[in-house]
Every structure is written in C-alpha cells, then in structure tokens.
C-alpha cells in the first residue's frame, strides 16, 4: 500500500564554487504530503530542481520507483511522472491558458495527427472548473494576474497525472480562499495515493497540511520526521540552528520628526490608497505575501514607476518624483528586491558598482576620479565588511551575501535620509544576515529613516519599530512593535482585517 516512491541520497550540488547542497538525503512515500522546510537559501529549491530535471547533481543518487534514475532534462522527469510547480513563473505570456497547460504534451487528433484544440480546450475548461477558477481557456497568460497565473500553474501540474507533485512556495501569491483550495487539492492528491512535496519557509502552513517533514539549513540535511511528533519550536530550532531571540540587535525606540508622508497613494492594478508616515530613526516594517503590492508601492515612491493618484511629502513639502535620480535628490535610496537584475551590474567590478549612484559626485567636470572611486569603495566596503579578493573583482563572482553587501554599500554611499530596503536578506547566509541587521540598526541610530520590506516574519518582528501589513494592494493593518505578534500579522497578511 504505502510505498517509498522516491529516495535521494547524498545529493551534492555546486554552482561556481558555491555549495548549494552538501550531501542531502530525502525520502517520500506514496500518499504522503512531505514538507521540505528551511530558510531562504537553505537549498530547498535546488534539491527540487534536481528532481525536476532542471539541474544535474554533482554527486548522489536518485531512486525513483525502486529504480536508479537520472533526470537529464525537465521533460524526462515529467515523463517519469514528476510534475513541478516552480517558484518562478514558467509560463508563456503570449500563449493562451489552454496552450500553457498542454505545451509539451499536446493532445492530438487520432485520425490526422494534428493538434486537437477543441479537446485541449474542453479539458482545460474542466480543469479550471474543478479548481473553481473563473478564467477563460483562451485568455492569454499575460493578461492574468499573478495569483491567477499561479493557479494555472497548479492546473498544469495536475493535468500531467503525475506520481509526485512538487510545489515550491505555492501559497506565496494566493488569497486565503485560494490557499484553502490548494489544501483541498493536496488532500485529494493524497487520497489518490500521489506523493506531494510541499516547500515552504512558513512554519504555520506546514502544520496545517503536511504529514512528514525534512529540514535543510545552509545546504545541509538537518533532520526529518513526522509532523505529529514535533512542535513548532522544535522545528524552528532545527531550521535556524539557534534561538530566535538572540538574532536581532537592539532596536531603539526614539524617533525624530516625520520625514516621509504618503497620502492615498494609488496605482491602478497594483495598489490603492496607501497612506503612512515615516519618522527619522524609525524602522518601519512592511509585511505581506508575495503579490501584496509592497514592492510596487516602494518603486512608485522611488520614482521607478508612475503613480495614478496620491501625494508624497518629504519633510512636509509635497514632492513629484519622476525618476530615481530625482528621488535621490530628496535623500531617498532604494535597495531592490532582485540584487542580480536590479541591484548590481554583474559584469562590472565592485568599485564600479559601489560608485554608480554617486558617480556624478566623484567626478571632476565629467572626468572619472579613479582615486576617489577607490577611496569610497574602500571606505564603505570595509564598513560593510565586503569579502572579496580585490575591489577589481567582478560582482558576478561574489557570493549572494557579498553581492547584497555591494548593493548596500552603493546606497549607503549616497548618504540617504530615507532608506527603503526590499527583502534585503533574501537568499543570504545567516552570518551575512546578522551583519546586515546590525547595519540597519546602526543606520537607524544615526537618524536615518528606514522602510524594511520583508516576507520573513521573524525579521519583521525582530527589526521593526512599527509594522504595516499589506494584502492585495491595500494596507490592512498597522501595528506598533509591542502589539504585534506572528498570529495577528499573518492574519492581516492573508486578508482578515483587525481593528
């Protein structure tokens, strides 16, 4: 009846010298919902991508259905009966929902071998109905919202009739109703004797849905067991390796004047009526699920995107910020979410990256001042403890943590008065995380106003003076530090508004 369908032993994976996985083991039986737990950067996605045939392991074995296998490509993995919903959208924006679901395994007309769109469309409609989704099968995926796209991905995974279904952070963009559906679907899969690998870094969800768990930390296998045999605290201990309390620096309670005021900020399709105030020396945490609209709000304040309506005041004066350069003039700085795409220029070296935002200030009549460039890089690089063999090193050769430090150095060098940080510790090792947190606390002590956008509950709770929670483009609740706890913040994030 219950049967070990997959066993991964001793999996190792390296990327350009960075150890993503070091000897990880993983087992799952049919009819089991198995949670793969760990912090950001623990290696969960990497492990699962190996299973899905996206990556090849450097060492280790895979035993699927009692046979030793090698999944050399995503297609081979799919054909073997493994269906994966990855974190990144792997959809074709210009193609319809039907086509996205069936691409790779089209249904053909038996008589002439041509594609049978009617059959595929009917099946898609049936699938969408089963998931109670109000989406027309002909809709182009580019016209769907983020949450709808995610649901289509789930539909796609279900259409493959797989033996193992992998879901990598599936709830990050879903509403509370959709999360409930997802649980229903998972339970149904379980009853059909399928195995479900459920990846999450949110401890709360896992207790709701999983039977078993495996914990990874920093690429290493830490432990596994039955969900029923373990408490939340024990799991947290395994995940972070030490006590929650000790991680965060002391946060000062003293704050100065209102330096930033946002009133009824709206951008159609992304967020509505955002209003808040930020004070000097304050760390304002912004929590929410992926797709809540926090990044969009910050990018609008910083001038990367235009607002539809609303007002922004800096130091009491109304401002119109049309682009990042103007934002910088008002003392704003923005550390973006995606450090490789938005935060750094990988093929340029550390000096060039660190000085990019202040480049006009380190020049004499448009000429580059190489000495000043080096001086500034050394000053901030040392302050932030960037670990590199030389300042000439290309940023692409640095570790994730050091890359993030380069971004930090770049923006601190602009001597901002308002620093917006969007997921600054995402995918970073624990040691660097601590350094970053200390820096944030130092900056706040110096009177710099900080907005910290984060999806990590412990970080938000540990670092913020005040917390704003967003959900589907609106602010649901504002908390002060003493009134906030994991429960009420999560509730606000998934849509139930507290007074």
């Amino acid at each position, binding site marked *: 009846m219950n049967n070990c369908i997959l066993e991964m032993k001793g999996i190792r994976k390296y990327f350009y010298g960075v150890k993503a996985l070091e000897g990880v083991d993983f087992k799952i039986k049919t009819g089991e919902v198995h949670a793969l737990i760990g912090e950001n950067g623990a290696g969960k996605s990497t492990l699962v991508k190996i299973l899905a045939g*996206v990556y090849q392991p450097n060492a280790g074995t895979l035993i699927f259905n009692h046979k030793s296998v090698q999944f050399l*490509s*995503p*297609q081979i993995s*799919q054909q073997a009966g493994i269906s994966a919903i*990855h974190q*990144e*959208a*792997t*959809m*074709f*924006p*210009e*193609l*319809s929902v039907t*086509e996205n679901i069936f*691409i*790779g395994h*089209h249904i*053909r007309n038996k008589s002439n071998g*041509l*594609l049978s*769109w009617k059959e595929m469309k009917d099946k898609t409609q049936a699938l969408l109905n089963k998931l109670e989704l109000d989406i*027309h099968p*002909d*809709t*182009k995926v580019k*016209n769907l*919202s983020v949450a709808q796209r995610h649901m289509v991905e789930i539909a796609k995974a279900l259409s493959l009739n797989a033996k193992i279904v992998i879901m990598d952070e599936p709830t990050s963009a879903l509403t509370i109703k959709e999360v409930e559906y997802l649980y229903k679907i998972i339970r149904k899969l379980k009853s059909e004797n399928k195995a479900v690998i459920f990846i999450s870094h949110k401890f709360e969800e896992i207790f709701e849905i999983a039977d078993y768990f495996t914990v990874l930390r920093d690429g290493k296998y830490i432990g596994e067991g039955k969900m029923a045999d373990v408490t939340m605290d024990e799991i947290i201990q395994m995940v972070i390796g030490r006590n929650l309390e000790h991680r965060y620096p002391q946060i000062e309670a003293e704050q100065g004047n209102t330096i930033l005021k946002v009133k009824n900020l709206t951008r*159609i*399709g*992304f967020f*509505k009526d955002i209003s808040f105030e930020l004070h000097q020396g304050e760390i304002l945490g912004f929590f929410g699920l992926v797709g809540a609209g926090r990044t969009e709000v910050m990018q609008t304040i910083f001038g990367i995107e235009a607002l539809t309506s609303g007002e922004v005041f800096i130091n009491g004066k109304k401002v119109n910020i049309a682009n990042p350069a103007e934002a910088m003039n008002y003392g704003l700085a923005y550390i973006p979410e995606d450090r490789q795409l938005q935060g750094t220029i990988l093929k340029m070296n550390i000096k060039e990256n660190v000085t990019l935002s202040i480049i006009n200030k380190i020049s004499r009549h448009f000429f580059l001042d190489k000495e000043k460039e080096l001086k500034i890089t050394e000053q901030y690089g040392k302050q932030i403890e960037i670990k590199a063999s030389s300042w000439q090193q290309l940023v692409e050769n640095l570790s994730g943590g050091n890359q993030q430090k380069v971004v930090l150095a770049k923006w601190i060098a602009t001597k901002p008065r308002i620093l917006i940080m969007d997921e600054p510790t995402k995918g970073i090792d624990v040691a660097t995380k601590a350094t970053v947190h200390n820096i944030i606390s130092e900056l706040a002590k110096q009177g710099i106003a900080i907005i910290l956008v984060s999806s990590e509950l412990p970080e938000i709770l540990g670092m913020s003076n005040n917390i704003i929670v967003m959900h*589907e*483009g609106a602010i649901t609740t504002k908390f002060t530090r003493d009134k906030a706890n994991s429960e009420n913040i999560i509730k606000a994030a998934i849509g139930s508004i507290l007074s």
Partner: protein
Amino acid sequence: MLVLPKKREFNFFIFIILIIFIISLRTPSFLDLNNFMDILNDTAILTMVAIGQLMIIVTGGIDLSVDASLALTGMSVALLNQHYPEIPLFIIILISITIGLLLGSINGLLVSQAKIPPVITTLGTMSIYRGLVFVICKGTWVSAHEMTEAFREFPRRSFLGISNLIFIAILIIVLFLIFLSLTKTGREIYGIGGNKTAAQYVGINLNKINYLAYTLCGGITGLAGFLWVARYAAAQSETAIGFNFQTIAACVVGGVSITGGSGTVIGVVLGAFFIGIVYNALTMINVSPFWQMAIQGFIILFAIIINTIMDKRNQQLLLRKRSFNE
C-alpha cells in the same frame, strides 16, 4: 468568445475594406477585377516570403537576408534554365526550393549553434549571398529571351482564372496555417519566442527549432526566387533589393510583435495585402515609384508605434478592469 488577437485581425480586415472603399470612390477603376487580380499577383510573392519572415520574427529573430537568398536562388535557376533548357520545370522548382533550404539552413546554423544574434547573422549572409549573385552571373543579366517559355510563363498560366502564382501562394498560406497552429513543432516556434527558459523546461529544443525556422523560411524564399525571376522575366544582381524590408513591413503591419512570441499567418496575409493595395493605389494616382521606399519606411515606423501604443493601452485597461473587480 472573441479573444483580443483575433479581434485585432478582424479590425484590420474591416480597416482594409474601408480603405478599398475610399480609394474606389476616387478611382473607380480600382475595383476592376483585372486590377484586383493584379494586386493579388503582385502581393503573392510578398505574402509567401512574409510568412517565412513571420516564423523567424516569432522566434525572436529577424531575417535580413531574404532578398539576397531570393536573388541568389532566382539567378541560379535562371542560369540553369538558360544553359540547360531541357531541364523540366518541376525539377527547376525543386532545385530552387533546395537551394533556398540550404541558404536558410546556413542562417539557422549560425544562429542556433554559433549563437550569433540574428540581426548580425543575416546582415552578414545578406552581403555574402548578394555578392554570390554577382559572382555567378559575372555581372551580367539573364533576360527574357534567354529563358524557356515554360519557365517564363509558369507564374502567369492560370487555371479557372487564377494564376499559378496565386495558387502557390494560397498553398503556402494553408500549409503554414496548419503547421503553425496545428502541429507541435509549429507551436514550439511560438514557445521559444515567448519565454526561452520556460521553453526549455517543457523540453523544447531551442537549437532544433531555431534551425528549423530559418531553414523553412529559406525554402519558401527559394521557391519565391524562382517565381520572381520567372514573373519579371529577368535575373540580375540587383534583383529584389530592398525586398527584405517589405517582408518585415508586412509582418509588422500584420500585428507581429517585433520582440517575438506572437503573430499570425492571417495577420501577415492581411499586412501584405494592405501593402499591395497601398502600392497599387499609389500607382493608380500616378505617384512615382521613387516614393516606395519612403512610404515603406513610414509604414513600418507607424505600424510599430501604433502596435506599441495599443499594447500599452490594453495593459492599462486590463489593470483597470482587474482593480475594479476586487
């Protein structure tokens, strides 16, 4: 339910009917059956090669060498016909397709294996092929009386009032309609243009599909080469110069996104037809042929700008709709 892209083609079709109507008000002879046939004949070759160009633009590339391939193939078969008039016509047609496939596959190899950006690849092969035309004809012409009658008359010969040329064009349209919407490989072409990473995740072989797209385009262009030199009864080193831009114009006007991933055969047919109408109308009102290049350039720019604006407007509308639903 009419989904947006189909709506666009339908709107475009109505637009063309309107234009025809307006033109015929000023010049009633425009609606003449003979004139209409002329337009179809003039547009046939453009339509065919534009379909080849469509495939390539959909993959996210571009083929600037189609005019040179066309000229090279045309010159090759014209020379063959001149020196070996006994070769039967269908062999000539097969040869033209084969040469075209070969020229296209060179582009395909360079883009897929050598990973050279399509703009550069086809810019390079355009010069090479064009230069080769000059080399094989040693700078001379092949003129009408050096071609066999069968060769010259082929495009013109008609069956039930429709010329061979138009039949072939219709054949190509139907074939590629089926290929691009009803076969797995055809849809994979759209896949790699839409999202390269996602395409690899579902097992689409990027190299194979790229190679295929350029080779098929070459095949069509080869056939078009024969039809061109036969129809105009001349082959020279300047044959079809600038034709590559016409094919791109037809695609862009037909709603093909220059960044890849979307575009339909029907759209391209309408686009080519639109350009044909414009040229025909301009000739009717005695606009000199020297205006052609400028009008073409203007049409390309105008079509791209309008497409971009409309896309952005659609996105805004969708965002508005979505936010009201919440």
